[in-house]
């Protein structure tokens, strides 16, 4: 049995969404699938909080949304990164790495 999935720390969901969308536009369900896939199911994205986060990021201007047809010929709302969103992703990745490194060095220190 695999380890119990980790609950996401506050604020990291936004970063994961931005990262997931860095390659290509996707709809909401695909984003949640992608995140779980990449993290080998280690991270459990609460679907209930995924959508509010998407709407929040759209409002901030980091994501842009449009309606398009899927491969199975269904209409879905696709999200993609804007230029501002890309910049934000870089900035947040950097600060996350720094935080992770700092926490790691504290944990390893003794």
């Amino acid at each position, binding site marked *: 049995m695999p380890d119990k999935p980790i609950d996401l720390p506050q604020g990291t969901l936004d970063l994961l969404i931005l990262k997931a969308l860095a390659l290509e536009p996707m709809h909401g*369900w695909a984003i949640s699938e992608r995140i779980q896939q990449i993290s080998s199911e280690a991270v459990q994205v609460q679907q209930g909080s995924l*959508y*509010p986060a998407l709407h929040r990021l759209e*409002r901030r*201007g980091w994501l842009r949304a449009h309606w398009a047809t899927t491969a199975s010929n269904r209409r879905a709302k696709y999200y993609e990164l804007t230029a501002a969103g890309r910049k934000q992703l870089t900035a947040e990745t950097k600060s996350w790495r720094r935080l992770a490194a700092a926490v790691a060095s504290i944990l390893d220190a003794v």
Partner: protein
Amino acid sequence: MFSDLICRLRAIIRRRAVEQELEDEFAFHLEQETAKHISRGISAPEASRRARLALQGPEQAKENCRDARGVAFCDSAIQDVRYAMRQMRRAPAFTLAAVLIIALGIGANTAIFSLLDVVVLRTLPVRDPGHLIVPAWHAKATPHPFDYSDFESCFSNTGAGPEDKCSFSYPFLTMLESNHEIFSDVTAFAGPMQLSMSADGAATIADSLVVSGSFFQTLATKPALGRTFSRQDDSADAAATVVLSHALWRKDFGSDPKVIGSTIRLNTVPFSVIGVAEPSFKGLSPGRDCALWIPIHAVDKLGISWVSTRPGDDHHFWLKIVGRLQPGVTTARAKAVLTALARDEMVERTKVLPRDSDLTVDVASADHALTGIRDMLARPLYILMGGVGLILFITCANVAGLMTARSAARQREIAIRLTVGAGRPRIMRQLLTESILLALLGGLMGFVFAQVGIRSLTAIFWWVHLDAEPDWQILLFTAAISLGAGLCFGVVPAVFGTKDGTQERATLYHAMSPSARRQWFSRSLIVAQVAVATVMLAGSGLLVRTLINLKNVSLGFNAQNLLLFGIDPASQHYQEAQIRTLYRNLRQRMAALPGVTAVTYSSDALLSSSSSSSGYQLEGGPHIHVNLLDVGPNFFETMDIPMLSGRGFTPAEFAAKRPVALVNKTFARKYGSGRNPLGLHFSESAKSPRYEIVGVVSDAKYSSVRAEIEPTAYFPFQAGAAHFEIRSERNASAIAPEVSKILHDLAPDVPVMNMLTQTEQIDDTLVIERLLARISAAFGVLALTLACIGLYGLLSYDVTRRTREIGIRMAVGAMPYRLKLGVLGETFVIVILGLAFGIPAATFSTRALAAMLYGIGTNDAATFSGIAVVLLIVSGIAGYLPARRAALVDPMVALRSE
């Protein structure tokens, strides 16, 4: 942040589309998730359940999305307003009562604030009024020779030190005009004085301001039509010209543009109309609007004695000066320069003042210096503003009480909503929305009330022009106090209403009984209302008693059935002999009217706030200061002023100037030093006539009801402007049409001023007292009524709430009268507590009224105890009704009700 705005706007404007998208997005997600589970071999219903579960409830998630989009706030505000309106429709009686009560409070405030705004707060309707200043001078000595006139005091003289005088001589003005050191423009004016004006038809009286040629230029006001004066219009050889006010043009000339270039007659002299002033410019002093403006030099043609523009007339001080400061000139510098200039003029050149007279010129901004009716009205208006503030407090407390009671009644609803997960802030916001909506409705209605109130208030001041049209400032004021009131009476019920719910939401049944805290709060609201009502009643009691005292003052003459009017035939160029003939004929014709018993005239009407006085030397006695009145034949008989000793004037003394005088009893007592004053002589100076005292009459009030009777001398009337007094057997105003007809027959060209009865005349001089007494009494009754309604509401609510308890107590044998006493006792505890706070507050706050009272002190025990009795009786009635209901509770019905 642009995306943010678009997002929010779209959410508001295209709400339905946004909702649909949200709907579709979630539907798609659930479909995909379900399909995923099915593809792993899970049954369709279970797959769908798991998909929903993963979303943690799709509806909750959607709500969070709406929040994330930032539409929730606006959205829920709209929702709240809708909900509030629904609540209001569901309780129309409550809504109507609350809106009416708020409207009364806000209406009263808006009305008084509108008047205060016109009289005190509004600035001059000219460009950049801050740079307009008015100089005034004072000196330790009185100039000699000295001829001084002004139409209103300025600078609100405090009485300390030498009086500030705002009138200057014409030569001083010309000197200032040529000196550009401090003023970029300077002008002067006198008046407004009353001129008779006729265009085509009958003559009317027009308030006319005499102005220098640079008047409109200095004030920088533009004409609405034609042009305003130039310097050339104001010179000795210029044609007589006039500028009309916009109001006069509209009223008397039907807004006819052809009026420009036409001729009107002022005191029979033709003037050509050159322009109409802009509508906003009505005059310089509050309440002294002008109908027309004429140049100083044109007045020479009118033959008015105090207007003097001759170069040698250095001792005639009659012009008020208004100057526009040069950029960068401070008032301190203006003061210094003007003082130096005035000393040059009055001390060095004309030598009307000695060198050691310490002549100094002060300056004040035109807004402050030209007080107009502000001196008279500012204080009463501030007092009334305090009064309406208290009224607003009571109305807020009252509505807060209503809302608290109502939120208690809605406890169950609120508890349910809290239980199903509505946030407390959300519910508080909703309750507040209701309050604010109520307040705004009340404010709207109050604004309408205020307009009605203002109309009736300004009608009391018919003799001043008060233009209290509402403007955006008034609207803003009303909106602000409505909002403030809404927050005040809304916040407390919102807090209490939701707090109890949280504590008791577990048991809905218990949630219905209000907490002790709320009861305590409701009671203290009533106590506060009673206390404030006490203060209001105390103030109005004192003011009403002042008016009663003034009305009961012994006047010394009979004011009943006396008709008055004034005429000035000299304004129509009547000669002295013509005036004598006219007055004789008028007396004869009027005396012959049925019901008229006596007719006379005098230089001033009694109790018209106008009087003259002078200093004399009593031969073999002291320097005396006496009031003067020229009286016509039969004056004392007509006015019912008894003759005490000596004789009246003889016809010969009226016909020719004989130096004889009658004096009043106060004169005799004060200056007669115990002897009979008959045969004594007094004179103004060694060269002037020696007046012989030939009779003594009883004392009568002269200029005002309030003033103590002063030593007065009466002289035989010779010729000039006169005020007629007509004694009638019936109601004096009934003979007014007949008197007008006689005037029209004998002197159709002479305008008639102030035809009214003597009692109306007295009422006019008491206008402030009447205003304060009336309004404060209305406010007092309003405060009392509101407090009692509040009390009644609270106790009725209590009785209703306790029906079950009362029923049980009756069932176990309590006597109905004991229950009745219980409720009444509670009433009196509340009222006595209110009085305990209210009476000390009243003794403190009525001190502000001290200067307005007459014949009564600020801490009048009779007034205060009277108020306490009235409050106890009225509140007793308010408490008795619910008490009786308590006693009539049927135990069986009460017990079955739950």
